[in-house]
């Protein structure tokens, strides 16, 4: 009885894995491009990027795009995924350059041996001579994001105290956004700092609530992630704070909810890095390079930041629902 039970489960697992494998084989085509992002891939932001990558893959019958990354942001997992992708000897790799120092060892040898590698979304911002020699980079300059956010804010008013909430502690590009924000604000005479709100949306909201209680003169908050803002705003309103009046929000990236918030006046503006294009162009450039040897435009292929305000909402809402923006 016991042995039969054990055999049954074994067979089930085997079947499950074989089904997965068959699916993979069914999709096997001539060119395989791995797209590995730092994620978490469940985040709606990355779903848009994934759609871009997959849509590009659907354009060519001989192109197979495999998109992957950790379920929630975890640097070690992301790096292990990149290594696993490279171990399959793909035709090209498109990835976020989230931790350049850690990725040096992994990417330089494969680039040297001729593998097309394209960076998206998170750039390597070390001095030019030190950077990983990717074919090109598609995305934004993270530092500029922070600067733009600050400038746009200062256009509207001069805050007393500004805070940046870091949702990916450990990601260099996310840290740089904070630096752009702080530097610009400080130059304008505003007290500014960055706080770490961890990977956990609920915990992060608590941290922000506590910070505002400790620093009630804070009147503007810059958030780099739509999902996080969607938990932070309700939490602050719970505290009795009138979001949009007592505290203003500068935002990065688009989601239907964020557009609604802008409409309601709770968020001043957001910035779009067009992550659909990051995934889409990343795959296209990689494919064209592998198949025809075509060189993509040099880095950086800038996809933003475009500032989105109330007047742009009508155009964007539908597209956001469909997953393009």
């Amino acid at each position, binding site marked *: 009885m016991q042995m039969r039970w054990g055999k049954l489960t074994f067979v089930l697992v085997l079947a499950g*894995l074989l089904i997965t494998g068959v699916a993979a084989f069914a999709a096997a085509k001539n060119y395989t491009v791995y797209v590995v992002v730092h994620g978490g891939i469940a985040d709606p932001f990355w779903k848009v990027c994934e759609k871009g990558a997959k849509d590009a893959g659907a354009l060519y019958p001989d192109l197979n795009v495999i998109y992957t990354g950790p379920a929630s942001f975890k640097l070690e997992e992301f790096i292990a995924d990149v290594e696993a992708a490279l171990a*399959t000897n793909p035709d090209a790799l498109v990835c976020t350059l989230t931790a350049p120092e850690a990725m040096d060892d992994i990417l330089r040898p494969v680039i040297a041996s001729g593998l097309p590698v394209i960076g998206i979304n998170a750039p390597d911002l070390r001095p030019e001579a030190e950077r990983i020699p990717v074919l090109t980079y598609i995305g934004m300059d993270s530092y500029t994001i922070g600067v733009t956010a600050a400038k746009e804010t200062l256009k509207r008013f001069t805050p007393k105290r500004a805070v940046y909430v870091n949702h990916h502690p*450990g990601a260099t590009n996310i840290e740089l956004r904070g630096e752009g924000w702080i530097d610009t604000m400080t130059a304008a005479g505003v007290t500014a700092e960055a706080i770490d709100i961890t990977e956990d949306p609920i915990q992060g909201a608590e941290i922000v609530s506590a910070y505002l209680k400790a620093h009630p003169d804070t009147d503007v908050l810059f958030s780099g992630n739509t999902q996080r803002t969607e938990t932070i705003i309700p939490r602050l309103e719970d505290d009795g704070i009138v979001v949009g009046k007592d505290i203003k929000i500068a935002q990065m990236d688009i989601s239907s909810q964020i557009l609604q918030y802008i409409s309601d006046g709770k968020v001043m503006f957001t910035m779009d890095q067009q992550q659909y294009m990051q995934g889409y162009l990343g795959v296209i450039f990689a494919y064209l390079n592998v198949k025809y040897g075509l060189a993509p435009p040099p880095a950086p292929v800038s996809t933003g930041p475009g500032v989105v305000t109330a007047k742009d909402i009508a155009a964007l809402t539908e597209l956001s629902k469909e997953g393009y923006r």
Partner: protein
Amino acid sequence: MDAKETTLWSRLINVAIKFRHRPEVGVILAFVVMSAIFSILSPSFLSLRNLTGMFTVVSELGIMTIGITFIMIAGEFDMSVSSVYALGGFLFVTLANGMNSLLAMAIVLLGAMVIGFMNAMVVLKTRIPSFIATLGMMMFLRGMLLAITGGKSVKYIGDSIVPAILSTRLPLGFRPSHFWFLGLTIVFSMILMRTRYGNWVFATGGDKGVARAMGVNTDRVKIINFMISSVLASLAGMMVITRFWIANASFGQHMELEAIAAAVIGGTFLTGGYGSIVGAFFGAFLMGTVRTGLVMSGAPAYWYRAFVGAILIIAAAINLKLRRQEM
């Protein structure tokens, strides 16, 4: 069949029968099966490049798993290992950026011993269940680390001595950490199975009252095992740092659960008194293999965690069934 052949054959059968009773049988079989499946789904799974790549991640998780297995067999939990891992790495980078890296490593290992000792003292003196006490330590250390670093990464600019001992790539893609893992597995397996101390560990976890009645110093056993757990966790932390060249407060989060899962998959009981270091070795391999295998097979990325969870449940259940048959 002549006489010699019969004896050899029956000897082999005897070995197979005895082997069936060992706690590691389940996980070794599962590992072999899983590797076979993945190598069919993705031909480059068994490539040297991939094997050495997986071995690296496995070694870091595995060294932490050895420590946690040892303390689990003694009847306690150590949830703080993931924080000691991160803190150890951060402390190493901070120190080694300003001094000889060997000295920095020694200080970190010593510091880990102190943390292990503190864990033991809290558990023994306050009688709080070790799961809770070490959970508290885990959150405390992690929080402290986040506060100190503010979430920023620290770059390694120290000398290359310790990196060469721990992580720097060797010919063919191997790394020193692989040999550390192999060596530590052998050493701790010997200690557990072949020494008096190992017998005391089993007894302490199996039935503390009986162990004490028979003269075993169960307090001392727990103190030593907590210290071992922390030291190994910090060693693993230094290995990942000398590979990534940066230290960050977020490293290793939830790794304590992965280590416990690897230990349980390898045949160690959550309730103590029974387990295997060799099993932990293969358990870590299983955990490390699954994720990579799924990525290489092109499986939908959203299913990884579900797969690992399912495997854990199945493996633990099978192990339990196998043990029940002989206990």
